[in-house]
């Protein structure tokens, strides 16, 4: 808009919040994934109860230019149900771990949604006309007595109230022994991959009864297991290239042209450890929780417990940029280990131009880093800042003794309010932030 593209000029405003205001949180309503589609017209969320809710951006109206198109519910459906694995006596959670959109090729929308074990391809389509005037059945659908029909007519399509239907077109099941953490659609739009803790499988959208195993890091003896796969993604343009991250803080880039089983990486990204910072928690906080290619395909971004790092694909020995998300937690690692917060998996996202990156933190804070100006900001998703078009005030965490009026001390942070999932519109400054069971939508200020 008129403010320019530097982040210091971007003022983020509250736009909408979805979800209940009740203080008690139903566990099934906890949002577990958020994703814009490729045009930004649709915004999908998945929750712990296995449901998918899709919001659609309304057309901007000239009457209300400041509203910039609000997102309203477009479709809601139950994607996954809880299951029981009888052989292992394990429940299979219906929680939606990831949603990934396919690029739109016709009037219908397609998305992949996955829980721990099964990936499903959903088709979301509109119906706004229905045929009326059948000969053999009446308006209620009851069959008419053929001998009573004296006139023939051609059924016509008449408009009806818009109905949005979601139908499962493919179910990709029984291919993962361990829990699926990532899915990624390939740039060829014909294949996609699903990654669990130890294996990555390549699927063709048309074939559900088999998949290719392209990565397998399971040791012959499970007692020797020391590392797991934490995230994986295809390169945005090169359909033969993908990356996967590990719990030891490494990223491997693989080329599917070299071998059927990509056990040997083409590139291996790892930052040497800083010996002065070494502790018993070093490995845990180095575990990468998310990996994302930039839109350009030249960089990858990784998130570990305390930092976000940007890597140049051409430089494997260290990241080109490191951003501290909440370094004040470094002295609290023992407590965070005890209450399991140290295992929280935060995601990270690029903006459309790859100039700003965003990730979540605790106390419903989320952070943005401008890669060009090196400025960063901390914002909060809360009901208190939820007046329409209210500008979000930057937040600050006080580390030392003197706490200023607007600052919050580390010990006062609410670690149950964590922002794990965020999404950035592909081309505009619109962001979606999942705060437990609420979805916040923020936009930059318009004149």
């Amino acid at each position, binding site marked *: 808009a008129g403010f320019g593209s530097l982040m210091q000029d971007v003022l983020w405003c509250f736009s909408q919040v979805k979800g209940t205001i009740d203080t008690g949180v139903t566990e099934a309503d906890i949002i577990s994934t958020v994703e814009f589609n490729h045009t930004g017209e649709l915004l999908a969320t998945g929750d712990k109860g296995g449901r998918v809710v899709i919001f659609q951006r309304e057309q901007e109206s000239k009457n209300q230019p400041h509203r910039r198109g609000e997102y309203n519910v477009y479709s809601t459906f139950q994607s996954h149900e809880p299951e029981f694995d*009888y052989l*292992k*006596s394990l429940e299979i959670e219906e929680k939606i771990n990831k949603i990934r959109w396919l690029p739109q090729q016709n009037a219908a929308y397609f998305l992949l949604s996955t829980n721990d074990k099964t990936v499903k391809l959903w088709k979301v389509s509109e119906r706004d006309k229905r045929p009326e005037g059948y000969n053999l059945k009446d308006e209620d659908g009851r069959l008419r007595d053929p001998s009573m029909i004296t006139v023939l007519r051609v059924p016509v399509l008449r408009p009806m109230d818009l109905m949005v239907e979601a139908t499962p077109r493919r179910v990709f099941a029984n291919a993962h022994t361990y829990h699926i953490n990532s899915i990624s659609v390939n740039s060829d739009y014909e294949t996609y991959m699903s990654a669990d803790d130890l294996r990555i499988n390549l699927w063709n959208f048309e074939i559900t009864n088999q998949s290719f195993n392209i990565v397998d890091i399971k040791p012959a003896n*499970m007692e020797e297991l020391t590392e*797991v796969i934490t995230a994986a993604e295809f390169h945005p343009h090169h359909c033969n290239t993908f990356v996967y991250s590990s719990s030891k803080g490494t990223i491997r880039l693989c080329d599917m042209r070299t071998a059927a089983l990509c056990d040997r990486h083409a590139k291996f990204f790892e930052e040497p450890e800083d010996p002065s910072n070494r*502790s018993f928690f070093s490995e845990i906080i180095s575990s990468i929780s998310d990996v994302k290619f930039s839109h350009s395909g030249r960089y990858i971004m990784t998130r570990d417990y305390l930092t976000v790092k940007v890597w140049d694909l051409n430089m494997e020995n260290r990241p080109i940029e490191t951003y501290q998300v909440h370094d004040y937690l*470094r002295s609290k690692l023992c407590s965070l280990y*005890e209450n399991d917060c140290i295992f929280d998996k935060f995601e990270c996202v690029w903006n459309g131009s790859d100039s700003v990156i965003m990730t979540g933190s605790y106390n419903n804070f989320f952070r943005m880093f401008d890669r060009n100006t090196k400025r960063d900001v901390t914002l909060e998703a809360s009901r208190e800042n939820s007046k329409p078009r209210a500008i979000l005030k930057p937040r600050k965490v006080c580390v030392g003794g003197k706490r200023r009026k607007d600052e919050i001390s580390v*010990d006062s942070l609410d*670690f149950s309010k964590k922002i794990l999932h965020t999404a950035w519109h592909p081309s505009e400054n619109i962001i979606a932030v999942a705060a437990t069971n609420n979805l916040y939508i923020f936009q930059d200020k318009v004149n």
Partner: protein
Amino acid sequence: LKRKCFDGEEDIEGTLAGIKAIPSYNLQRQSLLDMSLVKLQLCHMLVEPNLCRSVLIANTVRQIQEEMTQDGTWQMINTQSTGQASLDRLVSTDILCRSSRDQVEGKHVPGYGTFNKDFESDQAQDSSETMSTASSVQAPRNLQSNMWEMENPQENKGNFQKSLDQIFETLENKSPNSVEDLFSEVDNSYYDLDTMLTGMMSNTKMGHCDSLETFSSPTNTASNSNCKSDLNDLDHIVEILVES
């Protein structure tokens, strides 16, 4: 005196200060080991163990074990008689996990809450203050001393390695009998732990923090029988399915 950084604090300079700091470092390390082993057992009981978390905790345990073996402290701690030593270990775990306010009031630390500012400074408090709160943690003490009672010093390392291996084996081959398998080679004092933790299996949505809190409440004989019947139902269902 080279000393590894624990929890991000600065190295203490000077040999005198270094010598004073060593016991607290060992205590902290031991309590971290205890905590990690408890976590591994817990995640074993939950219906869906998170493999990444288990692997990271197990790696932490291995790191501690390696360092303690190099130090020579591994043998030292386990040759002590069980009664006094385990009590000390448990007290230090409390210190690590409680805020200073909670220590005075004797409350169990909540899963999410305010954090202790500096664990080292709490460590320096006289032990009599922390001993007085020992009575309020009756249940966790019984649990922990039962689990980690080392009877034979020579077998310590073997037992430890064996339990880690067992954990990974049973992560791999989860079966209706896995709970019994895990404890099959352990003496009967574990029985209370077994029945109490199987109660968690019926509540599959419980988070890890909730599980740690449940640890502190006294075992209820009524709930024990409920847990047993839940397991029996499960076996019954499996039988029916296999027969059909």
